[in-house]
């Protein structure tokens, strides 16, 4: 191996995190995995059922519908919130007291607890006393507890209101870190605003956008509190997310085994989506293939040098 040996001792500094994660995530995950294979009736009464719960959950139409709904919701949320977040961040003032004021205003929705957001929107969208509900009803029929579309749209708008600021703040920070020289160079070249955005800002924002995309995807795929408070998953089951369904099974019906199998599959899909997003977005930053070994290098050099050598010999002759 000609590669210089790296000193990897710094990895030991990660150990505290490993312990914390073990305590809060890995050990509970072990418990959940064990629940998923057995039907637990009591402390001394458990029955090993193998993969039955997995099959029951995977073939359950309610679960399949909730999964499809969650994927749709997450995609819609990403399609709306990422562009909107970038748009808002570019509108925000760049410096001075106006910048600070804008940052505070934008950050307000982020510091409100989820269930308070849900309650606020529950009242806001009421037809009798809610400002939003009454206003929208002046133009079109709006009833969140009867119309599937209204309920879905409300969840979407509420989530956009609650979480677009996160994207905005991340993008704003990313924009501020772009050196002024890039803009000056673009101005000298006479680049249009669109070109500046496309070829200067967007490439520089890639990293922050990836974080925003991952956070927004994972949060929206696990969304629970807001739809639970605003629509309770209804009308029917039209806004029932996977998390709401899972909680109904685990706590409502106390089917710990089924809920365990459900959780593991849910976990798998979040892993797959996140891994795909991450890999695709960091494709050109990934380290390339290992360099060729010295032996092969010598061979390729010979191939290049041979003709030169023969020419040299001719000249010398």
């Amino acid at each position, binding site marked *: *191996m000609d*590669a210089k040996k790296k000193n*990897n001792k710094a990895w030991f500094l990660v150990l505290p995190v490993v312990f914390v994660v073990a*305590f809060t995530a890995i*050990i509970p995950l*072990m*418990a959940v*995995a*064990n*629940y998923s*294979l*057995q039907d*637990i009736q009591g402390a001394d009464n*458990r029955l*090993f059922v193998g*993969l039955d719960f*997995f*099959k029951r*959950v*995977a*073939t359950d139409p309610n679960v*399949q519908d909730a999964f499809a709904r969650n994927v749709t919701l997450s995609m819609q949320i990403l399609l709306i919130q990422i562009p909107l977040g970038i748009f808002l961040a570019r509108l925000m003032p760049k410096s001075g007291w106006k910048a600070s004021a804008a940052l505070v205003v934008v950050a307000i929705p982020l510091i409100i607890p989820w269930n308070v957001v849900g309650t606020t929107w529950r009242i806001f969208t009421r037809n009798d006393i809610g400002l939003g509900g009454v206003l929208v009803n002046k133009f079109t029929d709006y009833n969140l507890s009867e119309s599937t579309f209204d309920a879905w749209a409300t969840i979407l708008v509420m989530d956009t209101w609650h979480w677009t600021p996160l994207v905005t703040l991340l993008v704003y920070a990313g924009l501020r870190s772009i050196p002024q020289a890039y803009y000056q160079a673009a101005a000298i070249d006479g680049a249009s605003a669109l070109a500046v955005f496309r070829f200067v800002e967007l490439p520089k924002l890639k990293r922050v956008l990836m974080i925003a995309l991952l956070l927004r995807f994972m949060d929206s795929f696990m969304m629970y509190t807001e739809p639970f408070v605003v629509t309770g998953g209804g009308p029917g089951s039209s806004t029932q997310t996977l998390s709401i369904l899972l909680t109904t099974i685990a706590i409502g019906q106390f089917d710990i085994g089924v809920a365990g199998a459900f959780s593991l*599959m849910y976990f*798998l899909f979040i*892993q*797959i989506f996140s*891994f795909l997003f991450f*890999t695709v977005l960091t*494709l050109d930053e*990934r*380290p*390339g*293939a*290992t360099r060729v070994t010295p032996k092969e290098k010598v061979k390729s050099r010979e191939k290049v040098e041979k003709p030169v050598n023969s020419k040299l010999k001719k000249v010398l002759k």
Partner: protein
Amino acid sequence: MFELFDWIPWTAPIAYVFIGVAVMITGLTIWGHYRPPIRRKGFLGVVTDRSERVYIAIVSFALVMVISFAIVDSNTSVWAISALVMSAGILKWG
């Protein structure tokens, strides 16, 4: 140390899985220390090293199994063997 684990209603297969994962991570760490992995591009179209291929193989195995669970009356062992073959293919040529 054991109080951390003995409240869990353990079953043998899950214990094997977690021991397997722990052994695998430790093994890959030691292996990687003495023989740094070679990064290469296979049929997955992405440059990967061996531990990344292990992760992809495991996740793909799990995904295929979940898909098989969703098919009514599917034969789990046939699916498991096919998924294992696929994972082995990813490890070797991925």
